[in-house]
């Protein structure tokens, strides 16, 4: 029995905090350690709510997915522990790797185009040569505010080659454009939708970074006789490198997680978009159409790890360049 134990409950009218503080400082000999303990405790009060949410919405589902991925539950025959078998299967699953390859191509082609356009728009808005900057800024950003589902439906309508916009263009100009919803063009069409949706978002990241560039740098450049392009390449771009790395990482993650656009377009072009078109779509269909929750969890974890690795590489590359310059 210790003193602390006996007095665990504060007397009436004294809060636990006050009582504890008095009690701790009262026992002088071990004050140092006690103080440290108090610091720990105070920290937890601040971190606690975050850790709780973090644990609930982030760690718990992740752990649960990992747990799930070690089993195999079948329609007949029930549930059994299979160790890493699901992962071994994923490693040699041609459907999964086809999906991975597809989003990788998407990443390599669409992301540079989208970020290039966003950068161009941000530089143009920042150039001080445009009137009505807020108007342009808002217009370019507007597609981002359109819900993804609606955006895909709008584009789906325009892509229609018998009754949509494409059909009207064909008729008006007497040409025969290939159908954007055909199997060979569907990835391009999805890339177009995603670019339209996210140019504004990335433009805003770049633009706000440009706004944070100190004015005296520009003045110095001007005094040194730097022209517009020299200013862009020597001051503006290096200054927003951090923002560019961030935007790239977001886009990398977005590419690997491609889901909404193909999933919605599937209803109007079911024969062009397979159930394993992207890794996410594959995992979704595995679990909800095939009841293969366990394998879907393994697929999700593998593609998550790949995404993390690629995003990390991008970040490393960004940092390396930064130290070089």
């Amino acid at each position: 029995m210790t003193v602390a134990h006996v007095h665990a409950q504060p007397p009436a009218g004294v809060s636990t905090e006050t009582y504890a503080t008095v009690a701790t400082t009262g026992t002088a000999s071990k004050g140092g350690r006690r103080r440290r303990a108090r610091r720990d405790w105070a920290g937890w009060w601040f971190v606690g709510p975050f850790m709780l949410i973090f644990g609930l919405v982030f760690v718990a589902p992740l752990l649960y997915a990992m747990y799930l991925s070690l089993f195999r539950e079948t329609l007949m025959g029930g549930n059994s522990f299979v160790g890493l078998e699901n992962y071994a299967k994923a490693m040699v699953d041609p459907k999964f790797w086809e999906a991975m390859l597809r989003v990788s191509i998407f990443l390599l082609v669409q992301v540079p185009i989208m970020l290039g356009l966003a950068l161009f728009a941000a530089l143009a808005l920042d150039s001080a040569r445009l009137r009505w900057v807020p108007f342009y800024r808002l217009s370019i950003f507007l597609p981002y505010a359109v819900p993804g589902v609606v955006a895909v439906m709008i584009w789906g309508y325009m892509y229609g080659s018998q009754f949509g916009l494409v059909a009207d263009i064909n008729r008006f100009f007497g040409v025969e454009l290939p159908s954007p919803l055909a199997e060979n063009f569907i990835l391009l069409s999805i890339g177009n939708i995603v670019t339209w949706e996210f140019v504004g978002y990335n433009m805003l990241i770049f633009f706000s970074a440009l706004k944070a560039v100190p004015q005296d740098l520009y003045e110095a450049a001007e005094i040194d006789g730097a022209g517009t392009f020299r200013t862009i390449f020597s001051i503006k771009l290096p200054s927003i490198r951090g923002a560019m790395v961030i935007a790239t990482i977001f886009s990398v993650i977005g590419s690997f997680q491609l889901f909404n656009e193909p999933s919605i377009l599937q209803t109007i072009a079911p024969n062009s978009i397979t159930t394993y078109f992207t890794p996410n779509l594959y995992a979704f269909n595995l679990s909800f159409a095939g009841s293969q929750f366990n394998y879907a969890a393994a697929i999700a974890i593998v593609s998550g790890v790949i995404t993390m690795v690629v995003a990390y590489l991008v970040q490393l590359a960004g940092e390396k360049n930064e130290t070089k310059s």
Partner: protein
Amino acid sequence: MEKITTRRWARLGAVVGTGALLVGVLAGCSGAAPGADSGSTDTDAALKEDVTLTWWTWSDTTQEQADAISEVYPNVTFDVVKLENPDAVVTKLQNAIKAGKGAPDIVPVEYQTMPQLTLGKALADLTPYGLAEYEDAFTASTWNSVNVQDQLVGLPGDSGPMVMIYNKALYEKAGITEAPTTWDEFATASAAIHAADPEAYIANSGDAGFFTSMIWASGGQPFKTDGENVTIDLQDEGTKKFADFWSDRLNAGELSGLATWSDEWTKALTQDKLGTLLMGSWMISGGMEDYGPAGRFQVAPMPTWDGQPASAENGGSGLSVTSQSEHKAAAAGILKYLAEGDGRALLNANGFPSTIADLENPEWLDAPFPGYSDQPANQVGAASAESVITGWQYLPYQGYANNVFSDSVGKALGSGGDLNEALVAWQDTLVEYGNEQGFSVNK
């Protein structure tokens, strides 16, 4: 022991509290074991007690029906939950079954997913509640659909014997004055329609549900289930016959690639660019007037291979009681009410009937449809119901099969190619999946 100070106790408490909260939340996910059901099979007694039945649906008219039933059984209140479509209902129901709770009492189930949900132990056997006595009231094909693996897992609702709804004006423009009665005549009409207007097609290439029904109507029976043993042969005679025929149309460029029910598909119908719907008879009163002025469309029997009537079911659903329901007797009692008399009339108000008495009712048969220039179109559907080829079975994992249809057959439909080859690829996927899931497929 000195280390245990008030603060440490408090901290410990906080940690344990957090843990308890976590456990509480997780426990909330798993929930109680299903079926605090009394186990009584006396449906009449169950309906005399106060009970609330949850009823999932994808139909707009269920609420009205529930209200009407509540007037007959004042003790029964319904909690009608409308979901987007049949697929959403299946997904949600399967998740609820997996989670161990959350399933409704009454749920509509498409005939093609009855085996899948029966296998997943989602549906209650209605035999103990006395539903089996209604067998003679229903058509053989619908009654067959709700009997899965020696269990009665549903009450037939509407039905979908296939008919051909065609655009008479479009056919006539191409010089075809009579509805094709054989597939040869259909092929001739197809070429003529596309030749007369290059933007017009006799039909669209179709989805999984269409494809399986067309195989059925051609005499194919690619899926056979006997307990755990499943046989899949997507190259049997009937299947091949239809695949060859449809490949020819496809490769001649005579089939529209528009997805059924898409906006463009609707436009194609309204603008005389899509000539034919091969669908279940529920489409007879399914709003064809939205797709054109009265008289544009007519209803004809399905073309056949030899001119002899042959048809299949396409769509249609029954009502089931879930295995998780805590009020099975009451829910089964409601199904009994809906099996005949006023209750059945309530169900038949929307949809094509599955009850023999209604299919033979002269008043219903002779009712003219203004949309089809007063054609008594129900007669065509009723005749089709009689010529549905018997013996068809869906896979015990038809939902999955329809989902991956687009990966093989759908792909071939979209980009041209040999449909037989695609069917073999589809079969390979289905065999592999079935064996993985613990069935014995093609062994």
